[in-house]
């Protein structure tokens, strides 16, 4: 009798919601309400939206919400793109031949330069509705994230351990089941990490793409970016500060509610079977794990997903070709795909040539190349400078685990913070003290991207094997020798990763950073970024195309000549495994 009562009581306790449910439910409902409120604004008619922006502080939460929603829409689109594009590339040898080089080039193209085109395109697509401008902004963010994510997913799909593949075959999983049970879970940690990093970069683009003027068309969507642009126009430094603070808050919330929980979740899919790796912690995940009702509610969708993942979804049986017939089919597809690709490529090249040559002279090309060269010098000098500053500091932080634990999230956070929000302050300083823009604007290029170097170096120094450090100290390796022989080679792969990201981001940032405004004052440096920005403001399309094309070519060469070989050296010579 008594045992029965105990059983009953324990069942009762289990079914009641607990205090954690309450907190979690509050969070979720607040999120839902925000979502509904925000999305309603996205489809409003386009009644001169620039007049609707106001510098009233009370509007900031709403603007922040709209900015964040744009971000999530873009990440959703990027995820869909990733799953389709990367899967196609990984599964089809013929498609792979083109999809991957295209992705590689897209990764190096400065997307901000194309903003003017996409804005006109999307405005034409949804005439009279805010949706067109929204789509353009979302597309800009999308282009800053999708390539990276697709690349990571593709690489994971190609590197699924062979033994697990064999297990999947011997369990006779259908292609659909194999994709959801093996390939996607395997790709999860990489995809999550890349998504999060891309999203960090995305804040920069969201701010840059909300308020755009292309020639006579001016679009400004309700959001922090537009608020900031208006504050700049009105020379309201207090509003700039308010925008910065709001952005800070938004990123903290994003970091706590999304980034950390997702990384924690992704840890589950890691293949290394040793339990030694330190698990990421997140209070949101802890909160969720302690809730009862919420977990029960979440179990429904989880089960539905499981069920869908177990569909067999087999394609109707294809005609079974004999081996020689199969070879023949592959041959034909080879010829078709290569031939088609070459023709498409030549055609595209001709189109670009015709467009640019109709409007521009060779001298203009010379100018663009020279300006790109200047920007390249700027990028190189600043990466070098950031290296000199942050590598020693990063190493010292990384060697002190307790300090590293605190600094690491901070550096990741700073990398996510859109540096362009801070630009006005720098401009005020440059105008006030009449500084040389060619030198002082340069710092803005690296401002947002230097943190990638810092947190990668910290990560590298933290991972540096303890016994190697002890060996170095027992042989009394000190001073310069210690840096050159011990530490720098040890963190080299991490540094290369960080510097590569930083340099990519810097090229993009140059478009915003070399051409900045404060009210009616325009401060401009000599560089391809300023060239593109000025052409955009003037609505001079051929110049935009030329600028972006020359810059892309430089970036691609820069990557091939500098970063690729460096990564290869890092991979072969200094990887500590």
């Amino acid at each position: 009798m008594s045992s029965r009562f105990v059983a009953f009581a324990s069942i009762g306790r289990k079914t009641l919601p607990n205090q954690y449910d309450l907190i979690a439910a509050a969070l979720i409902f607040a999120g839902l309400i925000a979502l509904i409120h925000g999305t309603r604004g996205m489809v409003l008619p386009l009644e001169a939206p620039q007049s609707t922006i106001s510098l009233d502080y009370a509007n900031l939460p709403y603007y922040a919400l709209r900015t964040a929603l744009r971000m999530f829409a873009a990440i959703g689109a990027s995820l869909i793109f990733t799953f389709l594009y990367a899967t196609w590339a990984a599964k089809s040898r013929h498609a792979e031949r083109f999809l991957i080089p295209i992705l590689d080039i897209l990764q190096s193209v400065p997307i901000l330069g194309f903003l003017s085109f996409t804005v006109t395109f999307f405005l034409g697509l949804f005439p009279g509705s805010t949706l067109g401008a929204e789509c353009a902004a979302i597309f800009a963010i999308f282009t800053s994230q999708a390539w990276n994510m697709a690349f990571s997913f593709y690489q994971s799909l190609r590197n699924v351990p062979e033994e697990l593949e064999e297990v999947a075959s011997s369990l006779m999983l259908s292609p659909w089941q194999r994709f959801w049970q093996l390939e996607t879970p395997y790709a999860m940690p990489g995809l999550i990490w890349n998504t999060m990093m891309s999203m960090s970069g995305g804040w920069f683009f969201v701010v840059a793409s909300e308020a755009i003027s292309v020639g006579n068309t001016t679009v400004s969507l309700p959001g922090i970016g537009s608020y900031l642009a208006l504050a700049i126009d009105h020379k309201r430094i207090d509003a700039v500060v308010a925008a910065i603070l709001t952005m800070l808050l938004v990123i903290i919330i994003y970091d706590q509610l999304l980034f950390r929980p997702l990384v924690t979740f992704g840890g589950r899919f890691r293949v290394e079977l040793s339990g030694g790796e330190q698990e990421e912690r997140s209070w949101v995940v802890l909160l969720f794990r302690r809730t009862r009702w919420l977990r029960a509610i979440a179990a429904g969708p989880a089960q539905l997903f499981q069920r869908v993942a177990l569909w067999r979804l087999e394609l109707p049986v294809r005609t079974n070709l004999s081996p020689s017939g199969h070879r023949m089919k592959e041959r034909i597809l080879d010829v078709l795909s290569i031939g088609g690709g070459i023709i498409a490529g030549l055609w595209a090249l001709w189109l670009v040539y015709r467009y640019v040559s109709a409007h521009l002279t060779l001298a203009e090309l010379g100018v663009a190349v020279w300006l790109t060269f200047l920007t390249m010098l700027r990028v190189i000098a600043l990466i070098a400078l950031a290296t000199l500053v942050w590598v020693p500091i990063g190493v010292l932080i990384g060697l002190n685990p307790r300090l590293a634990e605190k600094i690491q999230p901070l550096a990741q956070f700073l990398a996510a913070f859109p540096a362009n929000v801070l630009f006005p302050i720098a401009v005020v300083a440059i105008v006030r003290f009449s500084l040389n823009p060619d030198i002082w604007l340069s710092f803005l290029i690296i401002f947002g991207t230097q943190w990638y170097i810092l947190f990668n170096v910290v990560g590298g120094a933290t991972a540096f094997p303890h016994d190697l450090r002890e060996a170095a100290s027992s042989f009394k390796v000190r001073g310069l020798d210690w840096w050159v022989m011990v530490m720098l080679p040890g963190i080299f792969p991490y540094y290369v990763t960080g510097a590569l990201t930083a340099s990519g981001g810097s090229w993009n940032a140059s478009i915003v950073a070399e051409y900045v405004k404060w009210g009616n004052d325009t401060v401009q440096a000599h560089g391809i970024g300023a060239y593109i920005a000025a052409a955009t403001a003037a609505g001079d399309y051929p110049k935009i195309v030329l600028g972006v094309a020359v810059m892309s070519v430089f970036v691609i060469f820069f990557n091939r000549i500098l970063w690729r070989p460096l990564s290869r050296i890092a991979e072969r010579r200094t990887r500590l495994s």
Partner: protein
Amino acid sequence: MLETRLKPLLEVKDVCQSYMTGSGETGALVLDNVSLSLKEGEIVGLLGRSGSGKSSLLRIISGLATPVSGTVTFRGEPVHGPFDGVAMVFQSAALFPWLSVLANVELGLRAKKVQEREARERALRAIDLIGLDGFESAFPKELSGGMRQRVGFARALVVNPNILLMDEPFSALDVLTAETLRTDLLDLWVEGRMPIKSILMVTHNIEEAVLMCNRILLLSSNPGRLASEIQVNIPHPRNRLAPEFRQLVDKIYALMTKRPEPVAREGSFPGLGIGMALPEVSTNTLAGLLETLAGPQFKGRADLPALADELGMAIDDLFPMTETLQLLRFAEVAEGDIKLTAAGLRFAEAEVDARKKLFGDHLLAYVPLAARIRSVLDERPSHSARKARFLEELEDYMSDDYAEETLKSVIDWGRYGELFAYDETSETFSLENPT
């Protein structure tokens, strides 16, 4: 009833398999006309050293790989691709790390649309049978190697296969864990508590084969051929120390080291001359082995099982070493024995520099690839050559992987014997630093 018993469950007929060479064409044979059959109620072992194609054969039988020629039939039906009726246990367990033990075991059933409740019941039964009760909700990360392999067994057994295929399932485990798992599995088999009718296992461990199998099929290496078939008629449980057990182990060692027919071959590695595939054996290991053999315990001559026992090695580790010694004429191997040559004894007693000199001389004399590299370097005015030059030459004879491995071994040996220098960054051979 008697008829179905006698009829083979599975038949392999004249199966051939080849490597793909570097240029993508079919290259050297891995399996050469292998035929075998599997009857109900027996455990059959495929025993061979690495390069005998035993794992390839297992993958062909399971339908994971397609042979170049020959057929596999299961109950009279030809096999194309994975089929119901067999289940495989992998060397490294190969569990999905993101699924719990229960979900890992269930997956095969759920994928085949077995009802959720039935799948759960059968999975729980399999987990129970294999001794994993209480670990259902654990994730593979949390389990030891032995426990993981048990999950691998449960996953294979849950689909009620007729034949259980095992690819060296104990070789990744430590000695004690492996022994426990073997005995547990044998107990289940002898007591008939597993739903399976027959087991086919790949192994390179002679004692393991003798301990578990009713029949052992010996595969020769390069290409893999069926060399001999040994019946094991000792009743279970078998005692490793029993004289008949030891005799059988010795006999298999002798069979596996039988001197090859006197054809014009250099040692027992596949290929001739430049195209000889060489195993990755470090010079340190070779020196250590020579010292051990020359030492007071063996006095220059050893019984291979005893040597393997002394060194705690399986044949897969031991044979490449003994064969390298044989190739370099530091030892002779025959009929399960290894005997040092005069040069081998001299090596064991020499100082470091003299050892290197001796090793270099033998390398030049007996390893054609080393001689080729040296002569190319001597002839060229620059005294240097790119690695790719030799790699391409090797790839005419063997697969990419083997070419890499062979060249890596020769680089290691050549550096030790100071025949040439090699720079990893520029991937070039030169004559520079050794003077």
